[in-house]
């Protein structure tokens, strides 16, 4: 089993600080990078490219980082 430690609870759920820092850096780079790639004369496209970058970074982070939750299914009594 992967070693998740250390863990910290932020906003009601556990995170690994190192993964969190990596995820934030990647998200900011993807988002601002995509935003700057957009045609500069068009404000709307800028926002769209940026949002798309954010969504891509979200997918990438979800692929590389394992959720720190033990999910189990249990019968209700």
């Amino acid at each position, binding site marked *: 089993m992967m070693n998740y430690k250390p863990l*910290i609870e932020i906003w009601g759920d556990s995170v*690994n600080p190192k993964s969190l820092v990596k995820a*934030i850096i990647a*998200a900011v780079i993807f988002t601002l990078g995509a935003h700057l790639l957009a045609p500069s004369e068009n404000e709307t496209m800028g926002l769209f490219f940026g949002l798309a970058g954010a969504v891509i970074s979200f997918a990438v982070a979800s692929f590389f980082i394992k959720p720190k939750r033990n999910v*189990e*299914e249990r019968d*209700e009594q």
Partner: protein
Amino acid sequence: MMDPSLLIGMMGAALAAVLLYTFIGFIPGTDETSVLLPITLALVLTGVDAMIVVTFFIAAIVTLNLTNTMPTALVGLPGGVMSSAMIEHTLLIKSHGKSAEIIKKMATASMLGVLIAIPVSLGLAHILSPFAQVIEPYGAWLFVIGAVFLSLISRHKVLSLLSIVPLAMLFESLRHLYWGTGVVPEDTQITVSFFLGITIGPLIFKLFSLLNQNERLKQYQDAPKTISIPKASDNKEIVSPLQILSFDEMRHLSYGALIVNILFVLSPVGLTILVGETIGKRFTSPLKRSTMSVVSMSATVQATYLSGIIIPLLALGIPLSPVAIGPGAALFNAPPVYTPDYNIHHILSFTQLTVAIIVGAAIALVISYVLITKYARTITRVILSRVPHEAVLALFIAFIVLLAFIDAGFINIFGVLLIGLLTGGLHKMGVNYGVMFMSLYAAPLLIEILIGGVF
């Protein structure tokens, strides 16, 4: 007669909103304002018809408020800010092994909340609209009064009152800094990114405090949370709402959903807690009390959001409620498309707005109700085992950095950081979001009053 292509556009927008916000709603901890505002703003800036914008927004809030309650009930992780108010009750219900049952009750209550809130708030908007012309010149004053009023009804009155002016000075000093250095032209009033700075404040404050190693060492946990999902299979057949809720439950949730429409200027979270606790208190058995509370809260959440957007949008044209100032801000102010003097309120007629609201709500209700009663458990399991919390937090940070950059360039990323640190600290001390949002809108007038430019 309505243009058929417009109607198709509206339906498409509603459908997109339902799919997107069903997914977002199931992800624990996704703050409503941070996920509603940037996407609505993007849609507004494309310049699509105002009716499409309204349909999208209504479908989005109805879906989000409904789906947010699902992870809350099933696994005890709040789907958003509104459902964090329910967590204590849903945990108790879950410990009794009744979570499969309660999600159906909550979904049905949520639906009834929408069905009650829409006609009531349309009616209230109709009654209030003659007063709009009277109120309009005093719009800025209403925000000052609103900030004071929200402070007075909050739990920490003196703390909140004393925070108003320093907050106003923070916002205005950043604006004047940007004007003075020529970062933005002097007629540009930066609001959106400041607003999100407040929303994300507690997260920024927490992350900064974790950069202190002593603080971090204190907070390390031993093991990840164990989350149990009830195994009872999702019910594949759709039953009539009337078989799910008892008469008593329907009666209480209707009171809740009715009363909050009149109180649309107050904080949705505050109102929801108030209604849930007031109704819950009437019952002595813990299980019954918690069930009554979450059922009435599910309906109330929808009613606070719908009245909070519908009444200011139809009757006033100024964002005079926490919902309109917050998640719905792009409907009132999204330059260059909408401005405070020329926004959806001025563009659409009462009938057009009513049609858009009904189409959005109807599509969202039907689809998300079916999805939830059939697949709530499956969606929860997939999202909890695939979506890491790190990615969710990083997404929020990315949103805010992007909007800060768009509003006023690189320097504003640090401006918003400053706002986040300060408001996050105040939030931790007990100042609620409503007071801070109102202070942001009241800031220009407050500063004028302070330098003696008004009297």
